[in-house]
């Protein structure tokens, strides 16, 4: 990729431009989606977005919808909200299906079931899927085919689909979803009605800008030259695909992030997960530990900003800078972390002494973790992240760009205790 840095520069500048002109670009998007037969809804918070979606689904007189993996709908707890209304939301991404059948929590943006091994997945399918072949083995290909058969029945009969969006083009009204399995295409193509929930920061100004992000995203997220499937649609195409399209534009704290001059570039994020894969803290503690929908370095800056609540997430970092180096849109995560830490001290009434103590402890924690992973294994709780893919205590392959690391060496099995637990225990000892 000879022009990687030039693509990052363009991606970063396009996202900065989007934020600077957000009101007019959103209005332009709304105009273009509406002109092509789509309906645009605005949701100030999670409750409002969930209400809108539930009402749209109920109007279609169905109690089951198919879903494409989406961070935005996970953030607003859409599945739970729909369940309360008696509507079952069926996750169709293989990993999300595993997580959903197991009544579990995702642990990674891109591979949410990475904390489950093949045998666990087979057992989950046999117990919970309902139509899994009784002689199902734990060969990944067989497991994937069982999911294919199970979900195909759902796809063929679903009336309503719900998706997120990777990009929305203001000047044409075009939406884009980037995926691998084809479940996205199924949801975006077969049902009569499509509802897309999208954060207001997912815009790009022009169609041409897609040429930048369609090169940046696949390489940063899975290391592929291009993901197997990308779907783009503009409103409704008569006779082809859903004949009713709703776009829900979601705020839910994003305007709070936008108001923060120092932290607003967190809204550049295109959810590629590259920063998770290189983060030494994430590697150690895993996704569940962050206790937020957005884990890893980006979660450590985005979550406290979105919720506006006090958080210790900004301390879950060694400030090593690897996240900044791999970020396809050049979000300076370490600098924002430092800023958020300083603010915790100012706003939280903590003394500079406290900050210093916490800082030193955090640094110590990191070096402690990296110096001797075995200490953590004596701990009681099981985050289980990454452990599932370890064999005899080592991990031989990580997703890109971690794969560059594990290509030539093994990674020790992550600890069983979470950062939070260890932290709490440490405080108790004092």
């Amino acid at each position, binding site marked *: 990729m000879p*022009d990687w840095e*030039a693509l990052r*520069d*363009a991606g970063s*500048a*396009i996202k900065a*431009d989007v*934020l*600077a002109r*957000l*009101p007019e670009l*959103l209005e332009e998007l709304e105009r273009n989606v509406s002109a*092509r037969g789509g309906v645009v809804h605005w949701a*100030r918070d999670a409750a*409002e977005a969930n209400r809108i979606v539930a009402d749209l689904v109920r109007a279609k007189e169905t109690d089951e919808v198919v879903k494409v993996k989406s961070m935005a709908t996970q953030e607003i707890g859409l599945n739970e909200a729909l369940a309360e209304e008696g509507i079952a939301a069926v996750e*169709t991404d293989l*990993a999300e299906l*595993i997580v959903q059948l197991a009544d579990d929590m995702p642990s990674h943006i891109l*591979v949410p079931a990475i904390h489950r091994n*093949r045998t666990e997945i087979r057992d989950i399918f046999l117990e919970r899927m309902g139509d899994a072949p009784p002689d199902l083995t734990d060969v*990944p*290909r*067989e497991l*994937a085919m069982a999911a*294919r058969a199970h979900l*195909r029945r759902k*796809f*063929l009969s679903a009336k309503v689909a719900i998706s997120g969006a990777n990009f929305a*083009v203001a000047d*044409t009204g*075009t939406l884009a979803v980037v995926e*691998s*399995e*084809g479940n996205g*295409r*199924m949801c*975006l193509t077969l049902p009569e009605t499509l509802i897309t929930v999208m954060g207001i920061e997912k815009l790009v100004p022009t*169609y*041409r800008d897609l*040429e930048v992000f*369609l090169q940046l995203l696949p390489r940063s997220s899975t290391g*592929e*030259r*291009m*993901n*197997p*499937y*990308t*779907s*783009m*649609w*503009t409103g409704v*195409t*008569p*006779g082809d*695909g859903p004949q009713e399209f709703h776009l829900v534009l979601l*705020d839910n704290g994003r*305007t709070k992030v936008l*108001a923060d001059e120092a932290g607003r570039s967190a809204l550049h994020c295109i959810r590629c997960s590259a920063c998770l894969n290189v983060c030494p803290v994430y590697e150690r503690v895993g996704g569940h530990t962050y206790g937020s929908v957005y884990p890893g370095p980006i979660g450590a800056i985005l979550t406290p900003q979105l919720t506006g609540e006090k958080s210790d997430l900004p301390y879950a970092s060694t400030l090593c800078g690897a996240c900044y180096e791999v970020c396809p849109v050049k979000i300076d995560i370490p600098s924002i972390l430092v800023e958020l830490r300083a603010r915790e001290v100012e706003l939280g009434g903590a003394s500079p002494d406290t900050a210093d103590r916490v800082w030193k402890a955090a640094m110590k924690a990191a070096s402690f973790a990296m110096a001797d992973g075995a200490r953590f294994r004596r701990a009681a709780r099981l985050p289980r992240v990454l452990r599932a893919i370890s064999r005899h205590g080592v991990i031989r392959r990580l*997703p890109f760009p971690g794969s560059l690391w594990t290509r030539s060496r093994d990674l020790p099995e992550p600890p069983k205790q979470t950062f939070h637990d260890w932290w709490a225990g440490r405080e108790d000892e004092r």
Partner: protein
Amino acid sequence: MSDARTEMLSRIRTALGTSTPEPAPVPREYRSAGEHAAGSAEVLEVLVDRLVDYKAHVHRVTAADLPELLAELLAPGPGADPGRSAEGQVVGSSSDRSSDILPAGREAEVARARSSVVVPPGIEPAWLAGLADVEVLTDSREAPLSAVELDGTDAVVTAARVAVAETGTIVLDGEPDQGRRAISLVPDVHVCVVRTDQVVQTVPEAVRLLDADPGRPLTWISGPSATSDIELDRVEGVHGPRTLHVALVS
């Protein structure tokens, strides 16, 4: 309670307030085109390499030989060898992935004497001239097959809008020679006919071309569907067609 739209736009304007970042020109120093011309030998070689890497079956044929290739690929029963083209010019993987594990109830179809293929309304009729014992179903926006009917169809043949060599990508834009999005999704075998002059080197070249009709529904396809969700072990062929044949026609 104020209207959500008004309030969100007002929140954004307040958030930007006095510290609105200056809209700066976007630097576009990245490559807007490759060094090789569309359809050149260099570009085709890269495309074939990428497609094979993604486990697609690639067949390079002349326009005159295309009907024979399609007849062979679409012939009913297990006799057809998808790895051998009419020219005997084998390019691509000839793994038998598509037949090793079938969903319950579909085994019987393999041995059937007659197979079925769905085609878009604007497909070149000459392409299908060599088919024998193949039921040809035409699907269109005006007269669409149901999803269940498509699920009962063995294969689909479409043309393409553009292909990107560097990423091994084929783009369909829903025009009459490519058809509705559903037809290239539900059947298990997709035979995609790409003319060599449709192959560009880079993503920006393809986007520039597609930008002429931005409202068309697009499907970008880079190999068969895949997942790495189970222990990061790559499995090809999850929900989309499990077998992708690309006929590269010069």
